């Protein structure tokens, strides 16, 4: 009997309850991104632990895309080298506890990677938002190992660039703005199939922001439309 179990284990035919495995070997969980359309596209949400590569220009809602995810976490969110000052006031109005936000400004790129690694593996951070332009394959691998140790998510935010080869990330997305909403093209999803592009309406990213075109389309311009809808 013992022999048989050994044999089956050797063949990887025995399923071990994932609950008993050490955290670092547990399966990747999906954490909801907070947007139904995106969740459906990503087969459940952001991979945790994992590395999400977001390619976008500054100012098209890349942080707003992550806001519902950050809100749902109880551990720290560390922002490393954000392109401008983080506005605590905005975070507060999006119901994020500002105590959970740490900001790191580091001039040396290698130090920024070091800090990201430390935060990811510390176990006290749920997510690290890293603004970094040039990443190498081995650097991403190190970040991945750290993320697994600390059960955390690392978001790499960088501009659209032609990257030679692909980085070993768990999820890669390209964001581009359209007039009707934010276009998301998933270029890589570990363990998933190729997905069609989706577009998140601007009203989902910023519920309070009612553009004129929208109000015109709805046919009636009510001065207090925004408050009534909420």
């Amino acid at each position, binding site marked *: 009997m013992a022999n048989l179990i050994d044999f089956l284990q050797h063949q990887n035919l025995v399923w071990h309850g994932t609950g008993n495995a*050490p*955290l670092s070997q547990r399966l990747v969980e999906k954490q909801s991104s907070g947007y139904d359309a995106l969740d459906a596209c990503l087969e459940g949400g952001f991979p945790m632990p994992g590395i999400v590569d977001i390619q976008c*220009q*500054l*100012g*098209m*809602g*890349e*942080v*707003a895309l992550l*806001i519902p995810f950050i809100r749902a976490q*109880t*551990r720290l969110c560390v922002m490393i080298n*954000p*392109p*401008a*000052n*983080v*506005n*605590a*006031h*905005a*975070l*507060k*109005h*999006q*119901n*994020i*506890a*500002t*105590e*959970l*936000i*740490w*900001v*790191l*400004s*580091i001039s040396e790129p290698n*130090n920024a990677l*070091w*800090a990201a690694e*430390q*935060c990811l*593996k*510390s*176990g*006290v*951070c749920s997510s690290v938002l890293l603004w970094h332009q040039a990443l190498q394959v081995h650097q991403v691998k190190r970040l991945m190992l750290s993320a697994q*140790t*600390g*059960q955390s998510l690392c978001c790499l935010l960088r501009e659209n660039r032609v990257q030679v080869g692909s980085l070993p990330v768990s999820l890669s997305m390209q964001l581009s*703005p*359209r*007039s009707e909403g934010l276009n998301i093209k998933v270029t890589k999803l570990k363990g998933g199939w190729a997905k069609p592009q989706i577009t998140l309406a601007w009203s989902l990213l*910023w519920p*309070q*922001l*009612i*553009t*004129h075109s929208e109000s015109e389309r709805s046919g009636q311009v009510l001065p207090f439309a925004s408050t009534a809808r909420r």
Partner: protein
Amino acid sequence: MLWLYLHFPQLQLDGLLAQSAPLPPTIIVSDKQHVVVQLNDAARQLGVKIGMGLGAAAAMSTSLSVYEFKVDHEQQRVEELAQWLYLDTADIHISAPCGLLLKVSNMLSLYPNLTHYLETIQARLLPQNVQYHYGLGHSPLAAQLLAQAGYDKIDEDKASLFAAVGKLPIDALTLNTRQKQQLLRVGIKSVQALLDIPLVELGRRFDTELVQYVGRLQGKLHHPVEFYQPTETFQRDLILLFELENLTYLTKPLYTLLLQLEAFLKLRDKLTLEIVLTLVQRDAESLCLKVGSAQGEYRAKKWQELCQLMLERTQLSAPLQAITLRVDEFCESHNQNEDLFSEPIGTMTHAGLLSLLRAKLGEQAVYGVTVLPDARPEYATSRCEPSVQALHSSFTENKASLLRPNFLLAQIQPLHDKVTLLQGPERISTGWWDGHNIERDYFIAQDEQLRRLWVFRDRQQRWFVHGIFS
């Protein structure tokens, strides 16, 4: 009353010996007369003797390394030893410059016998790597004389102890030369001869100072001693054997200091939040490095890691001669209220991570953000100390939310691009009380790359960009 005197003949040399085992022939000379006061075995084999002049000693060998005798260094070391011995014995008197006087009688009620007490003291001194002689006596002076003569025997009997003191020559007494000569002139050559003369007779021939001295030696007169009170700070100096130019070589000497700190803190069950490391450089200002640990730490290994990160960022302007480790404040260790059963993720706490990041990147690099009650957007958000508390409070849903950009530009910039206004205006007109008054109409705008910007128009109808809806 029984006293124990510990005499440390070569404290400064012991400090050098502790750093590396095979020391080249080394002598320590007094700073004024340049006379050899301490020497190691290698120097002794060359024929150097205590009391020899520097010139004569230098003539013995070319490879002699010479250090200057520093009294304050020895005194400090004696104090450290007193602090160390305070763990085992209560009444300690620091006898300048290099001796400790312990009151034994009171302590014998805690220890089974004198042998056991002495063994405890000796075991305590062992890790300190110091050479010492001890002597017992029924008066402080008698114990001191025996220790300085290298008596080193356990004996409680009053008569035999005084007999041992009596055998010492007059030269061994801590009197000035004039008094010694006076005694020798009248034919008193040993201490016993001096003790045989009744005090009254002695008073007739000699001055009161000598009478006092003999009275105290016999234990007949009161000998005032001031007992040591341990200070609540930690400071250790280390003079390096060689001048260091590369800070990576500092690892080992620093670790020995940190181990002492660990022992110090462990015994008191305390932690410290900050250690101050002073690097003494040759002909240059000393560098003062502050290494912090936000959660409090006592372990030498952890401090070593943090110091290492700090030293990596440090530039020496001149070779390093000595280091000092100083800790002024201590804190209680606080229990971490964590779940016993849930599996810990990672190995760190908030404070641990914070101290690690700050040690490597500097104090300013890590900060939190907080909201201030101000209507002006640039004052409504501010940097603050990162929170090191794990948050468990339920965040209350904020209903009346304003739309604000996630990023604010560090500097307000004039708007040059063509934009379409999406929403607005929202007028903010406030701040007249402190000179930074603003009157702005804020709009949400979209530029040609479809970026969402937070722009405003001021009173003079000029347009500026203030934030980015990222």
